[in-house]
């Protein structure tokens, strides 16, 4: 109540000071790749949108469109938002990259924020989270927990973000369990519950007792629960309804602080094109509760790794590391640079899966 009152008072003051702004609410648009009820990726972006609404109250109006196919439909959707008065538009899937850039060219006064891409412009920022930090912790737990030594990985598309996640998980599983093997299925979708469930079941049939996923629905969790004796991790969202097993922990994307900060920048007129890549330390990546299904010592190690990553003492990609073909990548103690990580198109040594070519 008090917060709202302070905010409305602030809004009122602002309104008195800047009448032009008070008349015009700042309009913030969101383009989602899945439905807001996917329980994963899009759900968390929508939580960020709701946080913006709550934080700014009447000062801001938000609009969104869900399940927008990547490609021409995305371009039209973004353009319609821009034309209908959006001041700031977040496009929240990699496949919206070119569409975002194209629309941004036509609407130089509108600010755009594209998630997980690499193309920027004067009015286009990019932002993403260092999910690989969470993947490293997952890999550690997975390597310790697996009894069959087979870990199944439901990959979405062979893009750097996904490849990076597989590498980070594998490196840390291998570190604690030299016999571990990763089986990777490329689902070619971000959100397709039946396909994701099929992939999980196929991996379990091949002996996997840990399922990691880079797809957005809870279908793999349900498949693992049905199979029994299989553990999973929440992806993008906590997926807490599958606690304490099969879901033993999770990577949670917390976009709210970023969305609020960027909206504030537009309101203040201080918005600039930036490239943001935040991890555990600033809170963009969170590790969901590690349940009691995980032995206490493993949990302790996992949390210690999280602290080390957050404090900057440890980087998940620290040498010695070789590429899959055996060629040297990082020397002893050497840390991967962001450029290589952002364009990662190779697996590390030991992975037997292939990146589709």
């Amino acid at each position, binding site marked *: 109540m008090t917060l709202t009152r302070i905010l409305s008072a602030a809004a009122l003051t602002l309104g008195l000071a800047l009448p032009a702004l008070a008349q015009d609410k700042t309009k913030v648009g969101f383009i989602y790749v899945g*439905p807001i009820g996917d329980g994963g990726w899009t759900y968390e972006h929508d939580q960020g949108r709701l946080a913006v609404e709550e934080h700014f109250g009447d000062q801001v109006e938000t609009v*969104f469109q869900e399940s927008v196919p*990547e*490609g021409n439909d995305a371009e039209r959707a973004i353009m319609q938002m821009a034309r209908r008065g959006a001041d700031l538009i977040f496009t929240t899937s*990699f496949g919206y990259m*070119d569409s975002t850039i194209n629309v941004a060219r036509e609407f130089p006064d509108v600010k755009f924020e594209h998630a997980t891409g690499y193309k920027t412009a004067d009015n286009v920022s990019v932002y993403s989270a260092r999910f690989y930090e969470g993947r490293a912790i997952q890999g550690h737990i997975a390597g310790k927990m697996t009894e069959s030594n087979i870990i199944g990985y439901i990959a979405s598309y062979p*893009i*750097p973000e996904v490849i990076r996640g597989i590498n980070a998980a594998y490196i840390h599983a291998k570190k604690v369990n030299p016999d571990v093997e990763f089986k990777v299925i490329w689902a070619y979708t971000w959100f397709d519950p039946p396909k994701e469930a099929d992939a999980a079941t196929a991996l379990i049939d091949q002996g996997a007792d840990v399922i990691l996923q880079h797809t957005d629905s809870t279908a793999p969790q349900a498949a693992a629960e049905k199979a029994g004796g299989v553990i999973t991790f929440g992806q993008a969202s906590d997926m807490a309804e599958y606690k304490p097993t099969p879901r033993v922990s999770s990577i949670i994307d917390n976009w709210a602080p970023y969305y609020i900060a960027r909206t504030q920048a537009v309101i203040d007129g201080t918005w600039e094109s930036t490239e943001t890549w935040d991890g555990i330390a600033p809170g963009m990546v969170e590790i969901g509760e590690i349940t009691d299904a995980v032995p206490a010592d493993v949990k302790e190690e996992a949390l210690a790794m999280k602290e080390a990553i957050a404090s900057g003492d440890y980087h998940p990609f620290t040498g010695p590391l070789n590429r899959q073909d055996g060629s040297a990548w990082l020397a002893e103690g050497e840390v991967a640079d962001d450029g290589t990580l952002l*364009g990662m198109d190779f697996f590390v040594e030991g992975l037997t899966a292939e990146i589709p070519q």
Partner: protein
Amino acid sequence: MHPVLKLERRPQPSRTWSALAPVLAVLITMFAGGAMFAALGQDPVEAIRTIFWEPLFGEFARFDRPQLLVKAAPLTLIAIGLALGFRANIWNIGAEGQYIIGALTGAGVGLAFYPTESALIFPLMVVAGALGGWAWAMIPGLLKVRFGTNEILVSLMLVYVAEQLLAKMALGLLRNPEGRGFPGSRSLRDYPSAHNAELFAGTGIHWGVVAALIAVIFAYILLARHMLGFHIKLSGQAPRAARFAGVNPARLTLICLGISGALAGLAGMFEVAGPAGQINIDFNVGYGFTAIIVAFLGRLHPVGILLAALLMALTYIGGELAETNLGLPAAAIQMFQGMLLFFLLAVDLLTHFRLRWRRAEVA
């Protein structure tokens, strides 16, 4: 003894009802959809107005109207081809696959010339796109003619083969060498000779729209004036009579599948070189399947198909507006589109049957 409603088969399908059914279906959908939107806590009148009125006459209609044509173009092109086959009882269900292959061959030819600039490249791509779709449709065609396989199953299954091929191409042969490891081909938009650019600035209208309109005219003439059109209609209505009239069923099968494949391939080529802009893993968004609905909604008639494609485009674009402006969930819009088809099929019953009040017979 109470009166009951009885269905009675009409001796002849009713022409009036055949024409009236789509209109009635749209009206019923407006009411039923309105009720659904009301149940979701929305103002039903505002929701229906946003879907049907806003894109045509709203504040930004001059931007939305050409988008209707852009969205309707691939649907029209594909549905025209399908309808020719459907009329002759030849069921190509795999237009989605032919659409993908047309895009691959069209874009492939264009990219093979990169970065040469020449006015010949785009026409070559058009030919390649049509040929690609045609060739993909010839597989179920030849298998049917030679071995009597079912073209419904074969053409449908080939959609999934085409999707795998698309992924393979996006990740391999056609991948952009300067794409930083990301899947997807070079942008055809950034390659002027291969770009299916907009013909009128700011509208988005491209060659695919022109091709769709030409296809409508040709199909109309073909069906109304040409011997082939007569054979197609005859084969559908009276296969035995068609044989007596000298129609070669195998030849007709190949012609119909070939035309629909070529048109679907063309649609894919125009789309990839224009609105979509590049070959990528999820380039196809279901136009090949939606076109089946469009073909029936348009009564398998070329002009009807054009109108039906525009109507579908309207529900897409109006639906998107309802989502963003009113916050309607995407699923509700899909339900709304589903209702339209459901009611069309329901009302269609009246084309072939009539309703009669009858006294129940005493047992």
